[in-house]
């Protein structure tokens, strides 16, 4: 395919599901039908992505937040209780 602007050679790229033609000569970009909308939608999603939940106060090296329940279970009680009470 030739560049509609400078007649240079267009090269095809596929980026995250978006089909792009870029001119090797003038670097101009050609989008297929609907792909501008795809890009716009992806951009919106990127900006609207919720920030990572704030750490509940802890060090950078803290354990990842556990899932609800389970993690602080009783199966570990003996060794855990020993540690709570000893030097």
């Amino acid at each position: 395919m030739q560049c509609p602007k400078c007649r240079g050679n267009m090269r095809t790229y596929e980026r995250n599901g978006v089909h792009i033609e870029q001119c090797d000569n003038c670097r101009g970009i050609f989008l297929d039908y609907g792909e501008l909308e795809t890009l716009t939608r992806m951009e919106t999603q990127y900006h609207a992505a919720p920030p990572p939940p704030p750490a509940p106060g802890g060090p950078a090296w803290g354990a990842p937040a556990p899932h609800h329940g389970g993690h602080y279970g009783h199966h570990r009680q003996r060794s855990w209780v020993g540690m709570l009470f000893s030097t």
Partner: protein
Amino acid sequence: MADIAAAYGGTGTPVVHPTRTDVVVLRMGEVVVKAHSARDDAGELRPRLRAAASAAVNGVLLAPLEREVLSAGGRAVTVWPAGRPVSHDDPGSAPWEEGARLLARLHAVPLTLLPALPPAGGPARAARAVDRMSGDGPVEQLVRRAFKELPEPPPLPGLLTHGDWHLGQLVHRDRWLLIDVDDLGVGDPAWDLARPAAWYAAGLLEPAVWERFLGAYLASGGPALGRGDDPWSRLDLPARALTVQLAAVAVVNAERDGRELDEVEHSLIESCNRIVRA
């Protein structure tokens, strides 16, 4: 030791309480006699014991029945009134807030009201725990590396610090009191909060319990964490050190018992791993 207990009013059958170290604790009725570790320096124990007997820490630290260090079988011995320890049955309902408030009050005691004290024992404890690991497997190497890479502590004014706080360091008489003067001294009081902080950071202590403990400390005006918004700016270093210490103790215990690390102990090793990567 039973003779000493009897001399201070102890009656009944003496009961020896198990400890993990060479410390011997004997209870006879209302009197507890403690033979301190052979490694402990009696010269440092003396001012620590007198500090516990001083009016400035009344209602915070358990006061001894005898303000002088005695001797039995070549070991330094101290004499205390008996108290009720925290129940092991339900750690969640342990007096976390009360412990935090007592630490806040301890840290606020002006050093000028006390005999001259040695440095608090926290940092030396961490170093000793790491030294006790004899193996050289990947786990030991990781724990040693985490210890070696601990940052230099910033210069902070020293305050009265317990030096080895955990739930076993509380007893109830007419109220909850701190016990154990072996590591009491002048130091960075954030070390007293660092063991629960390390448990929390390892995912062992429930966040809600940690929040109760930390919240009670801050609400009582505890001075260890400065005035900033982030308590972790002061907690980070001592919590790293305690994580390393707890991991080293776990490795030594597992080796002594001839077993693998259990899940709880392993979470401390994982914490060390995150520390060296942080």
